[in-house]
């Protein structure tokens, strides 16, 4: 399954300052069911190179991180249970406070 993963708001620093990752993921439970929960653990294993606690807390993202699946807040699609499809774009963005 091909996915585009984007990191922003400083989260890219956790994956060698690369913002856009075009990745190929092998769904562990077959191609029918690949959900955000699976993706998060895949990202943690394969992309996050340092300070994983800055990306995840428990089995979800840490507070202050917005997750967008195809430009839509994952709250609207079922959060960790959101089913992913080939060519989906998932954005992880840390909220900014500066001004």
């Amino acid at each position: 399954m091909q996915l585009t993963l984007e990191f922003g708001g400083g989260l890219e620093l956790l994956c060698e300052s690369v913002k856009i990752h075009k990745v190929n993921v092998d769904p562990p439970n077959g191609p029918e069911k690949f959900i955000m929960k699976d993706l998060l653990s895949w990202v943690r294993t394969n992309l996050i190179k340092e300070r994983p606690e800055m990306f995840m807390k428990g089995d979800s993202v840490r507070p202050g991180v917005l997750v967008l699946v195809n430009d839509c807040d994952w709250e609207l699609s079922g959060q960790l249970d959101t089913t992913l499809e080939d060519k989906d774009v998932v954005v992880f963005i840390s909220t900014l406070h500066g001004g």
Partner: protein
Amino acid sequence: METNGVGGSAADMSRILSELETLKTAKNDIDRRISALEAQLRDTTNIQDKNDTVSNGSCPLISAVHSNINHDLTPDSVYRYSRHLLLPSFGVQGQSNLLKSSILVIGAGGLGSPALLYLAACGVGRLGIVDHDVVELNNMHRQVIHTEAYIGQPKVKSAAATCRSINSTVQIVEYQEALRTSNALEILSQYDIVVDATDNAPSRYMISDCCVVLGKPLVSGAALGLEGQLTVYNYNGGPCYRCLFPTPPPTSACQRCSDSGVLGVVPGIIGCLQALEAIKIAGAVGEPLSGRMLLFDALSARIRIVKIRGRSSQCEVCGENSAFTQQQFKNFDYEKFTQAPLSTLPVKLNLLPEDSRISSKEYKEKIDNGEAHVLVDVRPEHHFKIVSLPNSINIPLASLEVRLPEISKALKEEDNSGSGASLYVVCRRGNDSQRAVQCLQKMGFNSARDIIGGLESWGHDVDPNFPTY
């Protein structure tokens, strides 16, 4: 070849023409000032007339005799805002709404500067400015409302002066104080729209909660590094800040411009967009950025507008079952909630015992006495490139553990007498240097000591010519 005569008269002619041009410009300028003053006089009389007839009810006063006007814009306003009036989708109604509106901008920094410039220029009726800070030289690259003449003076005073010089018809209100739960309700309640142009997490929660309690739309912007974010909270069924971020982020995820840097134009763009959203709400035109968020990435020239969740029924502040009252707001400890200070003063850690630390003055004495030592600078490499102390070696904190052999080697090289060289650690402000010393002592470098207050104190106490940043 031209004769002197012809050349002379040509020069004369051009001199006369240019003088004429100058005088004409001056005349136009004086004419403009005369009509502005005449208009002001008319306005004052109108206001007096209005006040005299106030018992007459809400009927708008139409004083024009020889023109047909059915709006309440003065001739001067018609001229000043004519390009707004010419917009079919904004027009007289939009401008009229704007002139009656009041907007509060919290923070006169990187976001607030451009927002205030446009809000003053566009003719908001009343414009409030909140800030407790003073203008500093290292603000000037992005806080474009301030001029060098105001360095050291309150930002509110400086911003208000600029706003007044752009548009003397806008009522500018100055709040030269930090926003707190003790004064927020009182201040925010006097405005229709709130613009959050602050720079820290506790302020953002506090302002959002206050807007929910008072039922005010909140135009929220943020910028850091080369990225910006923008949305409108608590408006048209959209979420509040807490609906989106019910739990505060860890403090280590809250970077500040003074630590991480910011390209000046980035908050400039977000601040302009905040002014735009505030103008749309005040003018009652267009679709506000509510339930959506704009994400701006300057480096890759990408703007992404994403759909975010609506108001959450579970929200502790704006949700269905929430009973968050004004009194609860007043008692809420936002600094404790976010584990971060409301002011932007840098933190000063104190992790080490006294005998593991020396002052910058003591370190200077050690250099003067020729003491054999190694100075490790643990700042990131791009900081080291800005400025560093002579003979220091740069080993960023993040790579300290893997580069310990370099320190051992340097210590051996410095040890001329055989009695051992000392090890000192420095950073920008004296926090990371303490973390580094903790790590070094754990790894067997028992004599490692940090320089209290870092390079900032070196610049302050030892060498005033040392560049600070």
